[in-house]
């Protein structure tokens, strides 16, 4: 088994599935037409895009007209947040509400707005990483134009009370955007029932290709142009469409959204086995909520060791995982998410994130559980901050 890569970093990206690749290939080869052209191969390409739009919309109970294709989650987040912020400004609204555990695509977009004079409230989360909808309600002011709260966290897997937050925003007449990049394909999403006004998603998180995503914008909301040019995406995001990518996105999304329940049953079995076994290790802790959690997410801290070392040693055993340690982020601070749930720096540095997909097997989980404890023991034996038999 050591010759094969065991990929357990599916929150970073996923392998493109064979069906998805098959669905994309014709649009590289024979159906290469420009969707804006009137002849047959152009019309075929146009139809492929509109069919894809319909599929994506159906998966989240939206209508096709409300779906805009983008280059991925970060673009969708930026477009939604900046677009609504500047549209709001014209009506005298300059306040946005978000949380401290958002993805950097949201946080950094908001920080930029904040430097441009917008007021941004970053709500705290509790020790499990959950937002209290009451805090959202209390933070809303007459100047608030937007609430943006992620659906499920990319590091600790916590699933937020989206419907409750959506209801509050609806009642208070404030727009609600959610970064659902980690959630789509893993949980059932219904933008109407959950009162979601804007939603970001990315194909490569559910076995689709990289570089393509979508933004759902509820009918009636006026968006600012993202890219000026041709008439693509109703003129809001010009540029010849990434047709193979869009087709790959919709194929992957259809497969993912039609098999959520059965995949989750298997995934949570694998996840729970990892969690229960790793919690037996002395001075270990699970980060995030046990119940309101993505089915494939494990995030643990092991005292006395540093996450990057752990990651490198697992890599040497052929296992790909990730860490919230500072060292993997290129900065010296550990993950802002782990700090936001109240972990001290020294513990946050020792975090390990394992994210599973339906391509992982119980045999792989068993192998992980066999190799990980001795690695932790080795690193602790080298650590000056780990005291034996504490």
């Amino acid at each position: 088994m050591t010759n094969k890569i065991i990929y357990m970093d599916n929150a970073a990206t996923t392998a493109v599935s064979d069906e998805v690749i098959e669905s994309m290939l014709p649009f590289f080869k024979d159906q290469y037409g420009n969707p804006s052209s009137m002849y047959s191969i152009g019309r075929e390409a146009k139809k492929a895009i509109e069919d894809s739009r319909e599929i994506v919309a159906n998966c989240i109970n939206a209508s096709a007209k409300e779906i805009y294709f983008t280059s991925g989650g970060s673009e969708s987040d930026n477009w939604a947040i900046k677009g609504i912020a500047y549209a709001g400004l014209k009506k005298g609204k300059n306040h946005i509400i978000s949380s401290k555990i958002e993805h950097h695509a949201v946080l950094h977009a908001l920080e930029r707005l904040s430097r441009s004079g917008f007021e941004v409230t970053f709500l705290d989360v509790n020790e499990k990483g959950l937002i209290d909808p009451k805090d959202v309600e209390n933070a809303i002011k007459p100047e608030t134009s937007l609430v943006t709260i992620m659906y499920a966290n990319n590091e600790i897997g916590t699933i937020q009370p989206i419907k409750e937050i959506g209801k509050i925003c609806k009642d208070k007449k404030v727009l609600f955007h959610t970064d659902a990049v980690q959630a789509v394909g893993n949980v059932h999403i219904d933008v109407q029932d959950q009162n979601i006004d804007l939603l970001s998603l990315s194909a490569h998180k559910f076995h689709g290709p990289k570089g393509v995503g979508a933004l759902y914008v509820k009918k009636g909301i006026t968006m600012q142009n993202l890219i000026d040019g041709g008439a693509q995406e109703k003129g809001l995001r010009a540029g010849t469409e990434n047709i193979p990518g869009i087709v790959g996105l919709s194929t992957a999304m259809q497969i993912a959204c039609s098999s959520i329940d059965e995949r989750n049953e298997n995934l949570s079995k694998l996840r729970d086995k990892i969690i229960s076994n790793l919690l037996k290790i002395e001075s270990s802790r699970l980060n995030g909520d046990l119940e309101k959690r993505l089915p494939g997410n494990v995030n643990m801290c092991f005292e006395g060791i540093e996450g990057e070392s752990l990651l490198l040693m697992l890599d040497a055993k052929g296992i790909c995982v990730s860490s919230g340690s500072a060292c993997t982020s290129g900065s010296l601070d550990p993950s802002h998410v782990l700090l936001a749930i109240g972990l001290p720096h020294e513990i946050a540095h020792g975090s390990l994130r394992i994210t599973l997909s339906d391509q992982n097997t119980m045999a792989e989980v068993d192998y992980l559980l066999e190799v990980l404890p001795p690695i932790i023991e080795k690193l602790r034996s080298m650590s000056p901050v780990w005291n034996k038999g504490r």
Partner: protein
Amino acid sequence: MFYSEKVMDHFSNPRNVGEIENADGIGEVGNPKCGDIMKMYIKVDNGIIQDVKFKTFGCGAAIATSSMATELVKGKSIDDALKITNKAVVEALDGLPPVKLHCSILAEQAIKAALSDYYKRKGVDPEPIVGKIKDCHESCPVSE
């Protein structure tokens, strides 16, 4: 960010890991907040560093620089050991990614901290000989 083969070798098979009982000098640098702590133990005889061991909490580069630093000072005179700079550690490891350079500074400081402790135990003021040991914030800028 990628590590050289030398870094990976010293990370995977670190040299001189452990503690020295009855060490002549012990130095600890770094801070759990930074995510790097190095503890260096030395045994000195006739002005020669006869033995050196380390324990490190930190990333791959922290472990590799600790290991390399111990290799570089082992068997050397104190004078020669004090001449070892973080640059020498980096060069011996065939380079470090820029974000990891602070680890090599920490390794240099760990040696100096151990030697400083050695002089203190002998009742000698270490500062004129070893220089000032930088604290964590100078080698590891934690932003908050």
